């Protein structure tokens, strides 16, 4: 019978948590319910959460709309390639910043951090000229380059914080046994850093998958567009079929779900790491 008072004591916390969870999940439920309503041109108020005659028509229409599947493949290519490149390069850079002493180390790192302070929209016109100069406009590789480059500073910063708190002793042991720094990096640092790498991968992937402004600015060729643009196109100038927009957004969420749940067990551990160091 000791259980009851404990539950009683904790119940305000649970009530608050459940209320918070409901607030967080409400827009999502609303999105699902709207995506099941055909011909929804008006955002209803108050929202009707259970559709009167639900149908999957919107999902089929969105999926089969102009080039949607092509855009999906483009997005997948750009997001996966950029994530791999960005995480690999920033892990190497972060290792160097965390472990080696070299001239100008702190300065370089501060400059790297300074990049974080510059909002992307300021540099979009210079970037546009650069891409034009390099002949990478209208190219998915151009997007990969830009995405990777713009994400490096944050990822390096996060990973350096994590690498610095790994014990030096392990690495010294490898050196004594005749291993190289590359061995340390590949066989010690990376395996020990899965939580941090998972966190950085998830954030990067989500950022690349959702990115809209640069993709819209640098790509004119309809065949090279990515998913966020396809979704924005469902919003008309005068009337928007919201069911279609929400259905398309839900389809776009699937890869993020897969990615997130696949890496979730590492992710939660990774979140706290930045809290202590960095």
């Amino acid at each position, binding site marked *: 019978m000791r259980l009851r008072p404990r539950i009683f004591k904790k119940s305000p916390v649970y009530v608050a948590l459940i209320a918070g969870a409901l607030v967080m999940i409400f827009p999502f439920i609303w999105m699902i319910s709207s995506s099941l309503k055909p*011909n*929804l*041109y*008006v*955002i*209803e*108020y108050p929202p009707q959460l259970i559709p009167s005659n639900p149908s999957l028509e919107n999902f089929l*229409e969105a999926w089969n*709309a*102009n080039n949607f599947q092509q855009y999906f493949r483009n997005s997948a290519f750009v997001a996966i390639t950029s994530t791999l490149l960005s995480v690999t390069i920033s892990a190497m850079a972060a290792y160097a910043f965390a472990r080696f002493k070299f001239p100008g180390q*702190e*300065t370089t790192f*501060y*400059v790297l*951090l*300074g990049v974080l*302070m*510059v*909002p992307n*929209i*300021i540099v*979009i*016109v210079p970037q*546009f*000229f650069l891409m*034009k100069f390099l002949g990478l*406009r209208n190219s998915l590789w151009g997007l990969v380059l830009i995405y990777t480059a713009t994400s490096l500073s944050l990822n390096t910063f996060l990973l350096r914080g994590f690498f610095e708190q790994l014990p030096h002793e392990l690495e010294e042991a490898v050196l004594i046994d005749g291993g190289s720094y590359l061995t340390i990096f590949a066989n010690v640092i990376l395996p020990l850093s899965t939580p941090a790498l998972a966190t950085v991968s998830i954030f990067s992937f989500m950022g690349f998958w959702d990115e809209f402004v640069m993709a*819209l*600015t640098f790509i*004119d*060729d*309809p065949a090279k567009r990515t998913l966020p*643009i396809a979704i*924005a*196109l*469902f*919003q*008309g*100038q*005068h*009337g928007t*079929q919201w069911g*279609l927009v929400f259905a398309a957004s839900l389809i776009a969420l699937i890869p993020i779900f897969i990615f997130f749940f696949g890496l979730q067990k590492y992710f939660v551990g990774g979140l706290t790491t930045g809290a202590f160091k960095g």
Partner: protein
Amino acid sequence: MKSKKWLPLFVFMTIVAMLVGACAPAAVATPAPTTPAQVQKETVIVPQEVEKVVTATPPPSGPVTLTFWHGYNADTETPFLEKTVIPAFEAAHPNIKVQDVNIPYDQFHQKLLTAIAGGTAPDLARLDIIWTPEFGDMGALAPLDEVMSDFATYKDAVFPGPLSTNFIGGHYYGLPLDTNTRVLVYNKDVFSAAGIENPPATVDDFLADCAKIKALGANHWCFGDGGTYAWAVDPWIWSFGGAMTSPDYTTSTGYLNGAQTVAAYQFLKDGVDKGYIHPGIKGGGVDTWGLLGKGQIAMILEGPWFPPSFKSQFPDVKYGMALMPAGQGGSISVVGGEDIAMFQQSKNKEAAAEFIRFMLSLDTQLQMATVGQMPVLTETTSSENLAKLPDYFGIFLEQLKNAQARTPVSNWTRVEQILTDAGTAILNGKGTPQANLDDAVSKIDPLLPKPAQ
């Protein structure tokens, strides 16, 4: 630490970056004065090219690909353009391919500015009529009256209201492609519940009907609109006999703060105060379609996209359409729609002109009407052609005979912001209509073009 001496520099750079960042949105939203100069530089050699192309009339010998940017909607209009209209054009012009690019409307203006600055503008674009003066003024568009030898034929064939948005600085920088206007839409059930038989023909009728509708209850409104932007207030200003600017667009003094315009704003203010007009017009916005469907708002102003879309959402609601209620100035509504324009950067001006001719042909115009695009050719109002158009186009074509375009000036975006802010202040009771409009006039006048000497 060695790094200490870098710290001040780092902090300084960060602050500069953040300050620049804070200023950026304004610079992005309204084109900075430097942009036009830059554009001019990009396009300065083109006039010669134009002449070359004009004298060399034979069509392009080799295959040419035109790029055409547009904001047609993705569910019906774009598929129709890509599967029916463009293939027909390409069949008739074997040497020309058209690559169309659908761009989300909200980002279209911004993307065009970037592309023009970067020298990567398309050959052709379908521009919202309120953008044409701006792009024409900055030198980004080709003057069609010089590029197309038969321009006069097209100029005379289209409605004058939409055409007026293309004329700036002595040249025509585009041709209307599709048009629309707003008419009064009313909920028939609400009208019969309030004992009203016919839609209001005049502003006085409108006010009398409002009193009857308000008697239905506190959560019934006679009229609703989304704000005080020009698209919403212009029909009232003009129908009251007022105006935004002088006919040559060089001054707003005595027009925007003239007696009739003040009366129009006073009418809106009284409407809000009496509860006739939904408070959403004060700046908060309102779901006019939803409330019209539920019978809480009795009347709204809407365009030709309304009937098909509204029917699919509220299939059982009975509504009627009527002309804008007439005031001292008559029944005058606002013209919307799009122009088709050619860019100076285009290297295929002759082929691009061919596509413009095709888009403005009677056949294409009537075809695009099947997906809700209202034609711009005056001959479409002949009874024979009218029969080929959707029934509901009739009232809109009727209203178009008395409809004006929003002030076609290159600084329109900024002018409209001042207008919107003044209207919001008036409806929220911050100062009298006269005081607010006097203030707006003093801010708008410097943004208008200088009178020609």
